[in-house]
């Protein structure tokens, strides 16, 4: 193998020449800012370092650029071997180097990433390729926040991608398609309000605000000179109208919040730089206060911000990432996050002088190393948030079920401990209360009797909808649908599937929904059952036994706890 190790300036030390065999000097095809660390005609590749003459740094950023006909194309093992042979020039020419990341670029595409450290003897090893969808570890009682894995740090700051471009990172997962509204923060939301309220948009004070925002210097100069102000206001009016009409509908459905925050110390167990967004409402302040009907603040209530919980990286990449951000032994932990929030269709509603906070959900989050949103680290896309939300919803259901189970078991234990006392207590209750307790789920209630037809009719009429009742009925005929009752009378019962047929003259304890038609003078009422207990004795005498009632409750709790 012949690899040409060639500093951009100076003479190649003889020892190095020997070590690398046939060496030659050649003009570098690389960019002027690149430092050519090695050049091999045999292997048809170059190894370049970012930073030109100042390439040496504690965390080196290298690129192995293969020619189209390189024999090492697609051979990661030989690529790593070539890199490992460069340990001497790296160690010799850059004594401060502690780690290096090399991206293999084959036919213009990044095909692999290797990393090595000085402590490890500059033995390069491949970093795993990042999955395109972040794994969400699902536990029964926990939904992990979204932390898309990043296997390597972001590229050097030389390229300065913008949000709108959302370029694919050389080492980050393929960026999802993210909708990023043009106008961000307060202005973006204000445009939404103005679009919904043309009268407000046409107010002179609003036009003044827009002039102050859009033509700030001119406005400051002429704001107290009415003859010069008028043409500016006319221009601002046209500009506002043009802005409102030109924004796509998708922009109006979203808001963008920029959070300048910092990440915490690396969590080696979870392999993530944790970030905490411990709030659920984002308030945007007006950039220019002009006395007007415009709100001074606009707020979005975003309950799922906690999904954004960190910057995941493997340890090697994380180390390189922090070292790159270390100056004077201090790690710059600042990051900016541009969060796109989908606004609920109900939008904003007036509340006195301002607007109520509109409901929103996080659609995407893009992380940047700088406040100007130039150097992007990675993104979390809508799919990831959707999966997170679904997992969270499932977690809620599971948690509620588990809580109900725990509650049932706790109640059962308590009830079991007080069984004798409860039996004595319910024994002193009225027959109606006893039967109601027998028929109803839930804890013992010493004050709730069965419902009577007249009061239930009134409640259903006043509320305008069916009301839940528990009643003792005697069937007037047999069947399942609209069965007349002998008691209480003026009531027809319909039993639902899975419940027993009613038999004429038999008694039943039923729970269900009672409805009454509105029409004047109608005495009919309908009861659709949710639970039916066929009484063994007339008027359900057996269900009045206090011990039976308490034991039935215990059995129900036992079932609920399982």
């Amino acid at each position, binding site marked *: 193998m012949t690899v040409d190790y060639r500093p951009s300036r100076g003479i190649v030390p003889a020892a190095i020449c020997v070590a690398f065999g046939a060496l030659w000097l050649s003009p570098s095809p690389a960019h002027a800012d690149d430092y050519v660390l090695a050049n091999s005609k045999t292997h048809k590749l170059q190894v370049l370092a970012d930073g030109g003459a100042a390439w040496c740094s504690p965390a080196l950023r290298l690129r192995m650029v293969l020619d189209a006909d390189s024999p090492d194309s697609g051979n990661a093992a030989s690529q790593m071997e070539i890199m490992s042979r460069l340990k001497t020039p790296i160690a010799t020419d850059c004594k401060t180097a502690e780690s290096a990341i090399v991206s293999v670029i084959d036919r213009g595409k990044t095909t692999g990433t290797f990393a090595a450290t000085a402590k490890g003897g500059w033995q390069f090893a491949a970093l795993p390729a990042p999955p395109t969808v972040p794994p969400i570890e699902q536990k029964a009682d926990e939904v992990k926040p979204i932390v898309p894995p990043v296997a390597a740090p972001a590229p050097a700051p030389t390229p300065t991608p913008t949000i709108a471009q959302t370029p694919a990172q050389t080492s980050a997962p393929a960026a999802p398609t993210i909708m990023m509204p043009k106008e961000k923060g307060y202005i973006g939301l204000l445009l939404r309000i103005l679009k919904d309220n043309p009268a407000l948009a046409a107010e002179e004070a609003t036009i003044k605000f827009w002039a102050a925002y859009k033509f700030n210097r001119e406005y400051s100069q002429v704001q107290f000179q009415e003859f010069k102000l008028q043409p500016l206001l006319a221009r601002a009016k046209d500009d506002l109208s043009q802005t409102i009409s030109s924004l796509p509908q998708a922009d109006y459905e979203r808001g963008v919040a920029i959070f300048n925050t910092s990440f915490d110390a690396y969590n080696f167990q979870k392999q993530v730089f944790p970030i905490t967004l411990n709030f659920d409402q984002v308030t945007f302040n007006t950039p220019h206060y002009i006395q007007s009907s415009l709100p001074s603040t606009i707020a979005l209530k975003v309950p799922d911000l906690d999904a954004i919980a960190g910057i995941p990286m493997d340890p090697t990449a994380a180390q390189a990432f922090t070292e790159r951000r270390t100056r004077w032994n201090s790690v710059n932990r600042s990051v900016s996050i541009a969060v796109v929030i989908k606004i609920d269709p109900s939008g904003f509603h007036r509340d006195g002088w301002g607007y109520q906070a509109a409901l929103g959900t996080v659609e995407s989050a893009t992380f940047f190393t700088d406040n100007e949103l130039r150097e992007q680290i990675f993104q979390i896309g809508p799919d990831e948030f959707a999966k997170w939300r679904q997992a969270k919803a499932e977690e809620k259901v599971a948690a509620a079920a588990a809580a109900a189970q725990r509650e049932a078991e706790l109640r059962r234990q308590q009830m079991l401990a007080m069984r004798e006392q409860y039996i004595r207590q319910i024994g002193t209750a009225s027959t109606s209360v006893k039967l109601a307790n027998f028929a109803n789920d839930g804890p013992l209630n010493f004050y709730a009797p069965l419902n009577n037809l*007249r009061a239930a009719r009134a409640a259903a*009429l*006043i509320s305008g909808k069916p009301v839940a009742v528990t009643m003792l009925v005697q069937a007037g005929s047999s069947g399942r649908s609209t069965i007349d009752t002998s008691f209480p*009378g003026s009531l027809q019962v319909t039993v639902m599937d899975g419940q027993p047929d009613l038999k004429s003259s038999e008694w039943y304890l039923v729970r269900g929904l009672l409805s009454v038609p509105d029409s004047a*003078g109608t005495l009919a009422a309908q009861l659709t059952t949710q639970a039916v207990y066929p009484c063994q004795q007339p008027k359900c005498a057996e269900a009045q036994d206090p011990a039976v009632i308490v034991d039935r409750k215990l059995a129900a709790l036992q079932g609920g706890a399982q």
Partner: protein
Amino acid sequence: MLTKQHKIAIAAGLVVVTVGGGWLFAKHQANVIAKDQIDGFIIRHNLGGTVAYRELSASPFGSATLSDVSVRLSPATAITVGSLSVSDLTMKNNQVRGFTVTAEQAQVPLLALAREHRDNSFAEALGLGYTVLGGNITLSAHYDDEKNLIAIESAGAVDDAGSWEAKIKLGGVSPYAIDSLAAIASTPPQQINALQALGAAAPALQTLVGTTVAKVELAVNVDGYRRRDAQVTNHDLPPEGPSTVPTGMTANDEYKLVQAGMAPSEARAAREAVQSWLTKGGTLRIATNLDQPLPIFRNGSIMTPSFDSFDGFMAATKSRVSN
């Protein structure tokens, strides 16, 4: 040459035309006057947004009828009256001395009111299906200045609930008391000064000391209500044993009537009538049986009434209870 018959016929025709035209003219004038009075009353009492009617018909003899009257209780609910008439209006010194008001096809939307106010006050009636109370009612009051006698009568019926009739005659009512009441009644509420009203009412109350009961007749029928009461139970459990009949008057109540001065036979008859009314339905009537008007107050003070209970009233007025 006109015959005598022809002359008579022509004369009769002229009389008919003149009287008919006069009647129409008088009726038109009566409508104008009545409309002025009613609209003026509505405006003075700030009832413009509350009370409305579709049509007014008045007769030259002092009666007026309003059609399709509505008394709006809220934007969504109103009491409606198909026909509201005022008749037998008598005046003296520009003060009302007598009137009869009749409301027919009146409807009170109980369910709408309960829903609007989330009010359970009507729960009992609603439970029995009285979502709209419909019926008729008549109220009349006439005062005889010479005899100091006031006669108040009321009758009415509520659809599928019951009916009532009440006739009350009171003697010894001074014109001063009537004038005071009439003055207060005719003053728009916003112009009533509480202190002045109290000052006017106090002497009027003093004049009530001489008031006597001349005659009271009451008749109540609640068959409709009773029928619904039986159809829609308000019991959550079936009654134990045979169906029990509510006891209207106990033996003790009968004894109290006797103690209050009623003849034992009358007291027994009253108890039987009440029991029959409760069990069989029909009408319960209570009528006083006085030879002489009975002073309501004794010793010239309103602090010492002649009876302090219903039993005492029944005994003192020798009332008879029948079906």
